[in-house]
């Protein structure tokens, strides 16, 4: 029974104790929710759909997600083909304003310089995955600066009387980010140009920011489990280029990276790609902090071995 009451209260809660003029926002990921919150402050109430420890491409929304979205003022998402469940969720909410291109949705990929947009005539046989460019763009703090500006513009459009406040919040956060970016760059400088191996193709923006070279993927193609021949080739590349760091998300399997690590002495690090995925990644800045710390520690460890 307590469980039942708990569930009931959960479902009543959204109507309780909220200021009337608060902007209700639903984001697809916790990372986006954090960035919306830093700009919106107390004037927004933000909920997110995707559990941080799951692959964001595949998420099964729950009834409460539809309910929250149907009552929201704004739907914030990653655009491109980041969330394969985005369109059906928007449709289930019953509000056409949330459909792609609608007035009450915000596509955070807008205005970003995207990587890996396929060139020339499209053919699936090229083995290229994301038709619109790689959608994991928030892993670069330089992109985060543009994202928060996009958010501030939209919030000001929805609530013009609070424009000044949003801009204050925005500028404060941009200042904080700029300071942190200097600090992160400084920490990463010694490892500039170093080759790394990543599990899934989620890290080109981080590599770009950190000045690292992605020399190989554990997956032969995005979504295809590693094959024996591919692992053999990858081992060859790792030995030839003396690659000592393998980066993966927490939710991919550990077996293959461990095998690679045993054969090459490389360090496997689990980086949070979403806020809330690990204990350290409490918010956007601490998430990047944790990425930078883990990367530098991995390289330092390698140095001490050599």
């Amino acid at each position, binding site marked *: 029974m307590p469980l039942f009451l708990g569930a009931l209260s959960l479902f009543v809660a959204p109507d309780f104790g909220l200021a009337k003029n608060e902007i209700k926002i639903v984001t697809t990921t916790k990372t986006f929710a954090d960035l919306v919150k830093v700009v919106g402050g107390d004037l927004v109430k933000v909920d997110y759909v995707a559990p941080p420890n799951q692959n964001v491409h595949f998420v099964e*929304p729950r009834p409460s997600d539809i309910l929250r979205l149907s009552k929201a003022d704004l739907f914030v998402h990653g655009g491109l083909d980041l969330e394969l469940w985005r369109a059906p969720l928007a449709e289930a909410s019953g509000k056409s304003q949330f459909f792609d291109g609608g007035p009450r949705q915000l596509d955070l990929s807008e205005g970003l310089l995207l990587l890996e947009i396929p060139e020339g005539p499209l053919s699936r046989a090229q083995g290229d995955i994301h038709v619109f460019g790689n959608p994991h763009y928030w892993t670069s703090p330089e992109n985060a600066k543009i994202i928060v500006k996009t958010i501030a513009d939209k919030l000001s459009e929805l609530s013009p009387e609070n424009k000044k406040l949003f801009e204050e919040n925005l500028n404060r956060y941009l200042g904080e980010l700029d300071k942190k970016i200097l600090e992160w760059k400084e920490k990463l400088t010694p490892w500039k140009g170093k080759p790394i191996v990543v599990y899934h193709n989620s890290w080109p923006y981080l590599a770009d920011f950190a000045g690292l070279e992605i020399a190989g993927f554990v997956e032969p193609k995005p979504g295809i489990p590693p094959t024996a021949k591919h692992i053999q080739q990858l081992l060859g590349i790792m030995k030839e280029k003396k690659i000592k760091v393998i980066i993966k998300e927490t939710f991919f399997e550990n077996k293959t990276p461990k095998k690679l690590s045993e054969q090459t002495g490389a360090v496997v690090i689990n980086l949070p790609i979403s806020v809330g995925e690990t204990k350290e990644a409490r918010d956007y800045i601490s998430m990047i902090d944790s990425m930078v710390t883990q990367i530098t520690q991995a390289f330092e460890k390698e140095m001490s071995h050599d």
Partner: protein
Amino acid sequence: MTDFLFIMWKPLLACLILTGIHAYLGIHVVEREVIFVDLALAQIAALGATIAFLFGFELHGSETYWFSLAATVLGAIIFSLTRRRQEKVPQEAIIGIVYAMAAAAAVLILSRSSEGDEHIRQILVGNILLVSVPEMVKMTILYTLVMLFHWWFRKTFMLISTHPEEAFERGISVRTWDLLFYLTFGLVVTSSVQIAGVLLVFSFLIVPAVGAILFSSDLRVRLVLGWGLGAAASFLGIFLSYFFDLPTGATIVCTFGGLLLFLALVKFIHPKNSGLIK
């Protein structure tokens, strides 16, 4: 309550539509002892979509649909050809082999193509919570046509499922009717899997039929009981999914399991109940 209806009417209605046709087809499937045939046909349809994908067609485009349909027809032909009067190889074995081959072939094709198993998962993991109105309209039209067809030829369809030997003796072309059965069945299962996912479709197909067997040997009574059981699981599952905020498909599947367990207990305590409904 209004919130509940607002969010859940579509999945609830979709579940009731699914119950309507699957509880019926389930009786055939259980009588024929081809329990996993829906999984095999869904996997073959997914293989068809994978091949279309390799040729560069969009996953939800009409070309891809025709590819899956062609693959389903091929599956239907295989299953109707492999049923023999004197059965040396059990048909369940053929179904299992077809399932494994189709799944593995899709992996092989995808390893040469692009977007990996991500898109195949989309075909086999429908999400009943996010079902849309156009999807429901399409599925209602298709299922009604199939139901009418089966109603028109109900005697023959039932005979070849329940007493194939008698059908052979009467000179009915069992192979042709088997083919018609698997074609219509494949058509239904392929589209319901895209909406509800393999687990849920399997439950809608098998659990009502099995639950009804406990209480009656009359096929018509079983059908009515199956509909009742399917509808009960739909209502209860949708309700639980909403109030405890759980993934809808999995909640309904477990509700089916719970209801079946309950019915088995009733049967165990009052064994003579089986005689009451005849």
